[in-house]
């Protein structure tokens, strides 16, 4: 049974911010939704409410960076780049301000539908010079995201999980270091964020079916060490499969495609994720099934890549974790 950790960000941010007085907590009217309401109440001197005005907030954060502070901006991922994109470029990314963009509800982890689902954020951020991208995949990574982000000399975009988060790992994020979860030699599975848990559900069933899986989890998406990944790609016989909580253009699927093409690797690559489509509102489990982002979709992908059917069904996969959309474990419905 996987250990579930309730609101890991809340305590992690408080611990980090109190140890670093130059860290400021910025919020744009989603304070409880980003688990910083307790911090606001307990440490008002280090908290800045900037209201529903993301354009001003982004440039303001750039000004705080110029004044020597390291602002952590808390809001939903979409609101960190869609509306204030110009400000993100001119006030934060270009001048390499040490602004930490804490993007909650990545991809389809929100029932809020298109307006709330950051499904192309990694593609956008990967194309911004000077930007670093981190993504959390479990409670331990959420607990270590503040220190990891704050170690970067420049702007950082983080995909942060909230509410009840499973603990999959027991070591903190080391920026730039991928996690090697399995080292088989048939097929390479690369995941990040919530798709890692899905892949872990699938790997036991795949192993039982005789597939030797190599599974890597990415918490640092940019910058990226091509050489280490290339070794893994060259270690498998049947190809590479990526599963991402994101569109398949510009995210980790594209990242693998670039590495393989740049190095002339003649292996198959299957990119699973949102296929040139928006999602709609619904529970995470429903959306992952509907859009083919779950463990079952991954096993089907492995079958396609290996041209073999293993007869794996939902019953063979490790127990699915079902979150109620409006459970108490969540900060709020949205």
């Amino acid at each position, binding site marked *: 049974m996987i250990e579930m950790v309730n609101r890991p960000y809340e305590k992690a941010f408080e611990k980090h911010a109190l140890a670093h007085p130059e860290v400021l907590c910025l919020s744009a009217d989603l304070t409880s939704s980003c688990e910083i309401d307790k911090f606001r109440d307990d440490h008002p001197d280090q908290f800045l409410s900037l*209201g529903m005005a993301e354009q001003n907030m982004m440039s303001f954060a750039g*000004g*705080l*960076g*110029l004044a020597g*502070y390291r602002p952590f901006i808390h809001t939903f991922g979409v609101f960190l780049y869609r509306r204030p994109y110009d400000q993100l470029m001119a006030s934060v990314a270009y001048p*390499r301000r040490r602004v930490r963009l804490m993007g909650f509800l990545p991809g389809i982890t929100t029932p809020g539908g298109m307006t709330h689902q950051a499904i192309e954020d990694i593609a956008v951020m990967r194309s911004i*010079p000077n930007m670093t991208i981190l993504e959390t995949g479990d409670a331990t990574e959420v607990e270590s995201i503040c220190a990891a982000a704050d170690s970067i000399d420049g702007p950082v975009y983080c995909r942060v999980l909230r509410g009840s988060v499973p603990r999959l790992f027991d070591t903190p994020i080391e920026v730039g270091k991928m996690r090697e979860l399995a080292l088989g030699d048939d097929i390479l599975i690369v995941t990040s964020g919530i798709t890692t848990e899905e892949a872990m559900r699938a790997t036991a069933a795949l192993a039982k079916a005789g597939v030797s899986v190599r599974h890597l989890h990415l918490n640092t998406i940019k910058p990226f060490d091509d050489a280490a990944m290339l070794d893994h790609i060259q270690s498998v016989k049947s190809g590479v499969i990526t599963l991402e909580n994101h569109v398949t253009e510009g995210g980790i699927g594209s990242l693998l495609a670039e590495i393989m093409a740049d190095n002339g690797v003649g292996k198959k690559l299957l990119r699973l994720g949102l296929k040139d489509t928006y999602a709609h509102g619904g529970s995470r489990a429903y959306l992952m099934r509907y859009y083919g982002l779950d463990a079952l979709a991954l096993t089907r992908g492995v079958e396609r890549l290996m041209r073999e059917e293993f007869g794996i069904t939902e019953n063979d996969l490790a127990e699915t974790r079902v979150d109620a959309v409006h459970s108490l474990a969540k900060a709020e419905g949205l």
Partner: protein
Amino acid sequence: MTEALRNEKTTEDVALGIRRRVFEHAMRNNGGYLSQACSAAEQLAWLYNEELNLGAPTLPMIPKPFGGVPHRDNPAYHTGAGYNGPVTPEHDRLFIAPAHYALVAYATLVEVGRMAPEGLAMFNQDGSSVEMIGAEHSPGMEVHNGTLGIGLSTAAGLAWGRKRRGEPGRVWVYMSDGEVQEGQTWEAIQCCAHHRIDNIKAIMDVNRQQCDGAMDSVMEVGDIKAKMEQFGAVVVAVDAHNLNDMRAAAKTPHEGKPLIILANSNPFHAMPILEERFPRLHYVRFKSEEERARMNVSIARSLGIAPIDYAH
């Protein structure tokens, strides 16, 4: 260089010198930001020659060539802020929010002895740091403001941080009235008021012009002063060509609020022949050699100098 840092010239002389330099540049280059020199010369002259508390420049009088953009592989990168002196707690900072005024701002740096005249000749030349739209690395600039409306927000963040640190230096923003069409300007004013940021002061060139022409024909903005006051600023309207007006306005108390001086300006001030080009004044490119020659004679006479010998 032996040019004086400040106060060796009267502010009136600095303003006249700015217009002469921008005029000469526009004549030699068959066009330029002439109207901005008409409207803004007194404001920038007053800021640099009187109001701003700046230290001596820390960068060479003749600007270095473009040295690359900010990047982890470019550790020697620096902005052009050093032309405004060192960054210290007691000194003021200035952002030119409409970076399109760069030519006028560079001319000001020359007039107050912070940049050599050779710097102006580098304007908009390939490989130069003296860029057409002022960049972070351009003389006198500290942040990118080429997209309009972001300057006041950045200044607000800096001002909040400086206030928290107890720094006595103020943050000044030079603004343009077209920026009030951007929603971010209003977000910034309400933010300053909410957080009681009062070490920020702005002066806005209200020339009623924008790229497409007269503002009223492009997008009416109504009563800027009343709107800004409603959003939480202390606002004083002045004649942009009356130095005493600006001097008095800057002394207006504004505890807990930002101060915004609306400088109502004439976009043909001191170059009346430019009215012929109304309402397309944003960038005056001469339509013919005949017009260029006629404007050369007329504006030179208005500015009290001989026509520019631009024929090469």
